[in-house]
């Protein structure tokens, strides 16, 4: 199967490396970053492009913008892994639409377009007989979308709750384990590359809320938006609060929860028993689904990382190959 890769950040490079390294039957025929693009219908030499990117900061020809690759390259599926813009969803949304309009399948790790334009993009994909998949947008390597769609097919999902932001989980772990203040733990998370220079998005629960919106729309198709999520971050927590929880055999975690029956969509720090399955170490994500037949299902795994995210994207690509491309 031929794929075009748009976005050459950590996730894009991870995907390219895994396609080059593993014999997956995937050929990259188009590639682009924010400044350049490259098209080769016979297949791009990935190692060479990665080396060029490292050396020059560009993956191809500066006269070829990403949209040209999307509109002109010969591919079956577009891999859209540009940075998330939670407010506008651009330029990713435009890229995704352009590919779907060409009846190309789309796989994305980009939360902006899915959280903002879920219904529109799903409808556009259906109209064009193309797949639109976004496993990597929520909980990184955890195959939550595949589980919901296939493993738990026929189940009614009653509620879900989980730890969807690894940065907050790391900070809370360090505050609990070492008695660090919030500011100290945040600084440590930054040094380790777990937190952005501007951590607002993570620590105020916006990232977790966006993931909750994606899950809610996927499961219940209820059109929930970011502003419908009741949101409290972790930035006002004290080391003392963690210790007071600890005294009772508990700790504090940033929990995202959704229960449509109670019209509940909330991200907030919560007191939780230390033995609870959602209490995970480091940056690990965890998610519990409550269903009518299977009852509770909890999944734990890595929520971020270059190769971890590539795992989710490649899972989507191979699903498309098996279910759409081979049958055509």
């Amino acid at each position, binding site marked *: 199967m031929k794929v075009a890769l748009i976005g050459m950040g950590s996730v894009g490079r991870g995907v390219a490396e895994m396609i080059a390294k593993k014999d997956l039957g995937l050929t990259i025929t188009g590639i682009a970053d924010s400044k350049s693009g490259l098209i080769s219908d016979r297949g791009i030499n990935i190692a060479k492009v990665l080396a060029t990117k490292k050396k020059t900061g560009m993956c191809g020809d500066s006269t070829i913008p990403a949209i040209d690759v999307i509109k002109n390259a010969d591919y079956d599926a577009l891999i859209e892994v540009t940075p998330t813009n939670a407010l506008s969803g651009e330029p990713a949304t435009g890229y995704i639409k352009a590919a779907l309009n060409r009846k190309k399948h789309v796989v994305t790790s980009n939360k902006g377009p899915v959280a903002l334009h879920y219904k529109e993009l799903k409808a556009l994909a259906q109209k064009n007989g193309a797949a639109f998949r976004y496993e990597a947008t929520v909980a990184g390597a955890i195959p939550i979308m595949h589980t919901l769609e296939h493993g738990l097919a026929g189940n009614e999902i009653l509620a879900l709750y989980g730890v969807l932001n690894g940065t907050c989980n790391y900070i809370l772990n360090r505050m609990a384990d070492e008695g660090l203040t919030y500011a100290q733990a945040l600084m440590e998370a930054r040094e380790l590359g777990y937190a952005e220079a501007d951590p607002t998005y993570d620590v105020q629960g916006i990232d977790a809320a966006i993931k909750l919106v994606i899950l809610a729309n996927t499961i219940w198709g209820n059109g929930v938006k970011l502003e419908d999520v009741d949101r409290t971050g972790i930035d006002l927590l004290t080391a003392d*609060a963690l210790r*007071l*929880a600890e005294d009772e055999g508990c700790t504090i975690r940033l929990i995202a*929860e959704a229960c449509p029956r109670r019209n509940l969509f909330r991200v907030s720090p919560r*007191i939780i028993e230390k033995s609870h399955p959602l209490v995970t170490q480091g940056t690990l994500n965890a998610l519990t689904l409550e269903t009518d037949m299977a009852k509770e299902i909890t999944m734990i795994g890595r929520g971020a990382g270059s190769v971890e995210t590539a795992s989710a994207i490649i899972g989507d690509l191979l699903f498309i190959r098996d279910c759409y491309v081979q049958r055509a």
Partner: protein
Amino acid sequence: MQVSMKLEMKDSPGQLVAAIKPISDVGGNIIAVIHQREPDQDTDILDVQIVLELPEGRLEKLIVLLKEQGVHIQRIGEERLLYKRTVILIGHLMHTDLSDTVDQIDSTGYAEVCELSMSMPAVNERSSSRITIKALSKTDMESALAILRKVAKKKDLLMIEPLGEIA
């Protein structure tokens, strides 16, 4: 006076009514009835916990009447509040009148603050406290927490609630 009783009776039709009738006979008022059926219990014995309000001096009479009905009283307790939840409050707790915050719960009549742990760092820094609330029933607990949420919002305190069952 408020009394909580743990009763044991035959698990057969009419038994619960038989146990409850003497309460009204002595002028009592039932506040809560809680069945406690062990999941793997295959005996025909039913355990029921009852919280009631009794006019003073009627307890002895009630005990006699219950025994006559074949109800075994396992325990009579003063402890009337059955549901317990712990929350953490962070903020300027003293400057925002902590005793008023506690009083808002205590004055409900159905819930009260039974434990409070607090840490106060330097003056002007936010303090943290762990507050345990007891309430008569699940509904009362929800109402008490709703009051505390409102108070916390008004006083600009961060309230951290426990993760409960949500489905």
